[in-house]
């Protein structure tokens, strides 16, 4: 279920490598000056390709203030799965996160919201018990305070090493969203590259509003699995944000530079307060 890309398509690491002043765009192959790319919110100035960015960077881009929750929750190894702890430790060092999501209370323009941002650089953004639990707690926080809920998705799917418990996080988050939905809460789901499988087949699909970043891979089954199953070429742009927009699965495709403004406008629309 975890989506893996081939080596040559490896995402850019979140921290600059020692001599990495320059890098090549995954899409247009132009050589880009790293500082300039970062200033451009990691969107290629030549072709508009949206590079994957870590959760902390999204929080910088989207918010005017952030207070993090549940920093003390960390993954266990409930199945005693071989090498899982080492893999977790490596990604914890690499990202500075305990697991694949950061949650908290955020200011976005004049609005206060409950915000969750997934991090693809931590185990491919996969959802295990910690991600499920933090999403559940975030939904409750939003519900108790009447705050809108925003979750930025970035995930290959369920965390394989936590087995069936990972699968059950889909039911857990969806069941909690059922309550939030009945309470009249607003949920904006933002889909970034990639938002797939277990995450897309649970909370990420359940937004009142679904926004996607350009080019983001969005879907249930990974393209390689589909290709192996049907033994046919996939149509161009298959499962990309624009394709999903055309097929009615997302509300809007919004470039990263306009993401915050768009979210503020949507929050304005649904807010009953005067700002």
């Amino acid at each position: 279920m975890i989506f893996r890309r081939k080596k040559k398509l490896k995402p850019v690491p979140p921290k600059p490598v020692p001599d990495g002043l320059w890098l090549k765009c995954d899409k247009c192959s132009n050589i880009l000056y790293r500082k300039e790319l970062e200033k451009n919110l990691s969107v290629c100035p030549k072709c508009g390709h949206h590079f994957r960015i870590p959760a902390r960077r999204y929080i910088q881009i989207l918010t005017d203030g952030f207070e993090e929750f549940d920093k003390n929750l960390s993954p266990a190894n409930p199945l005693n799965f071989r090498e899982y702890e080492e893999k977790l430790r490596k990604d914890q060092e690499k990202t500075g996160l305990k697991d694949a999501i950061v949650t908290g209370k955020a200011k976005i323009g004049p609005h206060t919201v409950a915000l969750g941002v997934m991090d693809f650089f931590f185990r491919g953004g996969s959802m295990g018990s910690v991600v499920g639990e933090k999403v559940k707690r975030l939904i409750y926080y939003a519900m108790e305070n009447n705050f809108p809920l925003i979750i930025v998705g970035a995930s290959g799917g369920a965390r394989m090493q936590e087995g069936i418990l990972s699968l059950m996080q889909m039911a857990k988050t969806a069941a909690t969203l059922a309550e939030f939905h009945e309470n009249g809460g607003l949920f904006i789901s933002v889909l970034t590259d990639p938002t797939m499988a277990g995450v897309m087949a649970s909370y990420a699909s359940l937004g009142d509003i679904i926004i996607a970043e350009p080019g983001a891979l969005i879907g249930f089954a990974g393209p390689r699995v589909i290709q192996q199953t049907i033994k046919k070429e996939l149509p161009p742009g298959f499962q990309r944000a624009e394709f999903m927009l055309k097929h009615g699965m997302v509300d809007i495709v919004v470039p990263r530079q306009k993401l915050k403004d768009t979210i503020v406008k949507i929050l304005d629309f649904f807010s009953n307060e005067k700002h």
Partner: protein
Amino acid sequence: MAKYLDFEEPIVKIENRIKELELIKDEAGVQEELDRLRAELQRLYREIYASLTPWQRVMLARHPDRPYTLDYIKLMTEDFIELHGDRRFGDDPAVITGLATIDGEKIILVGQEKGRTTRDKIVRNFGMMHPEGYRKALRVMKLGEKFHRPVLTLIDTPGAYPGIGAEERGQAEAIAYNLREMASLRTPIVAVVTGEGGSGGALGIGVADRVYMLENAFYSVISPEGCAAILWRDAAKAPEAAAALKITAQDLLELRVIDGIIPEPLGGAHRNPKETADNIKKVVLDAFRELKKLPPDELVRKRREKYQRMGVINIEDTQNTPN
């Protein structure tokens, strides 16, 4: 002609020998030989089935003779009216939905169907549902809610279908929506994993007040083959993955993901489909009897709370974690 698995071979050999001898059982010495073989058969049964590996259970869950939803409908219901279609796009034959009567109890039945013959398997898409299947299942479950009939789902699928049309029509959305709506359905839901519980494709009809598994069924976030291919780049290591993923009924009971295990006849469900169906029927009817006592608000609250408790995490002492 029954098909059998590698580890069933010694049993099948003796069974065939017994059948031969039974034709000549009046001849001298044959009765003694028959008694000896029957004792040996019992011993073998116990030896083999008392210590099945997770992978052997996977093989049993996928056994070509294993009873499927259509068999259970025949064996369990006095009456069944099949309902078709999602009223949106089409009718998905990978899932059968309808109005069933079981021992006088009128219920909504939803079950994945793999198909028995080669032709059936193609029609049924090997039990791999499309979005319209999940939408049909929910539509019929909502009939149960509206008219106060409990819902039984029978899970047996390798997974939701990975195809172009399935993605175009929102496979992920269809499953997600079912999870949310099944967590809200104001009528009792019982789910039984009868064979393969293939990940999100299984869970899409699997959110329930009570979830049971047949003794040799399995339920997993990823197929053992898929897990082995990702972890060790070798699908042949599936038996190891089957053990590591903790996918047996006993594992899931210990992880508190399911509520109980339904016993199978010795040798597996296919050895006696009627007995298997009777075992399922008893557990399901008992569960419905209990669940019907709960007012809908409490039923839904308890169902949600059950899922909200699932998962295992470490909670660190905040004083020791300055970041």
